[in-house]
């Protein structure tokens, strides 16, 4: 056992110490942060660039509505910044001259535009805006809502409400609207988010199995190519070496996934403070909840999938002598994995079809497809049990075969063995 532990330790530490591990571990939370924070930040960034408060208000209404509009443009509250908005209170007769004067001001880019509030603005609710961003629907829309708010406040005050109460009651707050989908089977939660979430789980499982399976192959091939295998197997049995390698690499994969989960949760929690710090409103965002039971099953299926493909890739590594040979020899098994990846989408759309049910039980695809089904719909417990049972039996078989191929192939250099030779290795391993 001490020997097995030494092998596991080496396989684990040598991989975790690499830059590659650090980069790929940071990559997932980085991507998540990028996808959830940057688009919103960019949106607010472009909004800040077209500063709608940097305009002149020509108020000829004689009701003080211009002051209220300025307040609304500055953020809505009494504490808002109104210094950028120029307010000109004037008489109706001065309006035409002021307009042509401000047109020149805008042309000289001293201000972005001017808003004209006519004498009857409170009653006919018609105002005019002219400016460099006059064609921007977004900007005009936001100026429009500021004007609407100002008019509303002025009307309320005219109706006898206290000025401060008016401001506090009408202070602009964005309304949150959380949409949920109802399908044939009832409520389905946040449709698109859940869909993406399940897809990510399946894809990450697929990626991890491919990555770490290949890692086992490269590890075996390296020991073979550098001839270090001979020294190692003079101290431990090939079975111990193989077991240590598979367990060590698998532990790296599990470590990485745990780090992914922890950092992703941290990113989602850190999202709101970050956005507040950037003065960006953060729309609420929550991952679909996932039960501890399903989480445990995800773990079980990762282990099943990894072990199966690790055994296969270890055999391939022991059979070949070079990277190019390895590329060729692993192709049929990579096809199995790629076929599984192709199944992800149809299963996601229809998780209870007979295709989905079959693919979630066949041992080569079940490690990806069953967790996918579990995350989008409920699966009968006996199907889950059957998939695990068949997976475990298949793994036992493949590990037995792999240990025999490995035993002979590890010290076999020279030409690549034919399939018949490999079959003989399995029958009588020496």
């Amino acid at each position, binding site marked *: 056992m001490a*020997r097995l532990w030494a092998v596991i330790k080496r396989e684990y530490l*040598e991989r975790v110490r690499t830059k590659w591990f650090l980069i790929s571990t940071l990559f997932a939370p980085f991507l998540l942060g990028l996808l959830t924070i940057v688009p919103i930040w960019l949106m607010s960034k472009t909004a800040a660039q077209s500063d709608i408060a940097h305009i002149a208000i020509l108020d000829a209404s004689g009701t003080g509505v211009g002051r209220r509009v300025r307040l609304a443009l500055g953020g809505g509250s009494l504490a808002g910044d109104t210094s950028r908005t120029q307010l000109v209170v004037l008489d109706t007769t001065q309006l035409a001259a002021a307009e042509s004067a401000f047109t020149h001001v805008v042309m000289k880019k001293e201000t972005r535009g001017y808003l004209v509030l006519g004498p009857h603005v409170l009653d006919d609710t018609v105002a005019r805006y002219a400016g460099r961003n006059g064609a921007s629907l977004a900007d005009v829309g936001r100026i429009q809502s500021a004007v609407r708010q100002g008019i509303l406040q002025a009307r309320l005050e005219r109706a006898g409400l206290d000025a401060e109460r008016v401001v506090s009651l009408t202070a602009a707050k964005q309304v949150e609207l959380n949409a949920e989908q109802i399908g044939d089977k009832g409520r389905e939660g946040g449709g698109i988010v859940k869909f993406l979430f399940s897809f990510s789980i399946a894809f990450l499982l697929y990626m991890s199995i491919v990555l770490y399976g290949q890692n086992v192959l490269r590890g075996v091939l390296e020991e073979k190519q*550098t*001839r*270090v295998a001979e020294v*190692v197997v003079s*101290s431990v049995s090939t079975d111990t070496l193989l077991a240590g390698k598979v367990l060590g690499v698998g532990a790296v994969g599990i470590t990485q996934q745990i780090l992914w989960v922890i950092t992703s949760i941290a990113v989602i929690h850190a999202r709101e403070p970050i956005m507040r710090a950037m003065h960006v409103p953060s729309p609420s965002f929550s991952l679909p909840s996932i039960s501890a039971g399903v989480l445990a099953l995800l773990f079980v299926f990762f282990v099943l999938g990894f072990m199966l493909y690790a055994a296969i890739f270890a055999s391939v590594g022991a059979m070949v002598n070079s990277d190019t040979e390895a590329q060729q020899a692993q192709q049929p098994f990579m096809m199995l994995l790629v076929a599984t990846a192709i199944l992800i989408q149809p299963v996601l759309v229809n998780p209870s079809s007979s295709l989905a049910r079959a693919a979630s039980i066949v041992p080569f695809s079940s490690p990806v497809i069953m967790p996918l089904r579990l995350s989008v719909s409920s699966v009968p417990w006996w199907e889950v049990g059957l998939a695990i049972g068949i997976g475990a039996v298949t793994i036992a078989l493949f590990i037995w075969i792999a240990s025999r191929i490995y035993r002979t192939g590890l010290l076999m250099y020279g030409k690549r063995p034919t399939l018949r030779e490999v079959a003989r290795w399995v029958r009588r391993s*020496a």
Partner: protein
Amino acid sequence: MSDPAIEIRGVAKRFASHVAVKDLSLVVPRGTVYGLLGPNGAGKTTTIRMILDIIEPDTGTISVLGSAHRDRGIQDRVGYLPEERGLYKKMQVNRVLRFLGELKGLRGREADARIGEWMERLGLRTAEKDWGTAKVDELSRGMQQKVQFIAALLHDPELVILDEPFSGLDPVNAQALKDTVVELKRRGKTVIFSTHVMDNAERLCDAVCIIAGGEKVLDGPVSAVKAAHGERSIALALDGAASPAVQSILDDRALVAEVDDQNLFYELELAPGADPAALLRRLVEAGAPIRRFERVQPSLHSIFLERVGAAGVEMGMSGHG
């Protein structure tokens, strides 16, 4: 301690396409330096791998240090330097050595202490530079061989098996290796090494076994092996080249069975029944400028050539070592 270091009885091993070892038996006494000699492909490496339980013999038994070679823990008392050298390239030297030590049952802290000792002794750790923290592939070939050598000896094994240890060594490292072998023997360890270079074996071995084509040709203490091949050898040195008259004497198969021109002297093997005094007389009569005429024991080299012959060497040109 009365058990031999190694006892092999009737061991055979076939691979798919050829027989590597057939019915091999040999005994290596403890505390000796033992040479496993043979041409390339004679079955030396296969034999060594079977001793180390890397591959299983088809038939026969092997005992190592008094126990069956498959017994638990027995391989921890054996150190091995394989013919094909190799280490984990991207790993730190100290970590590789600690790992290989742990595989032999060494504890981490003790392994570290011994690694430090060895690294200093072989000049891999000096005041200016500690190669222990470098990656293996940053080391020169010679340094990597030293590291591999440390790996074989780190756990202070009772039995050390070196497969073609001299191949690829420069003269300085070859001398250091010879010194270490002598030192190991002085400390009561058993050293087995395989080689096809007879000079190394002649200088170092107490006993040898010559194998060819997977079969034992002969074995025993070097002195006994030489004695068994009789003092039929004569070292003859001449001043200048041999005249035609001298050459015709050397070509006389009634007197001289074989001539091996060693450049500085000839190693002659007398024909059966020939009298060395008669040969000397003939040479003097022919006016040969003799500088040396000495009855000597045959060299392992000549015994090897005589017993294995060109055919054995030819056979060894293909297949495993």
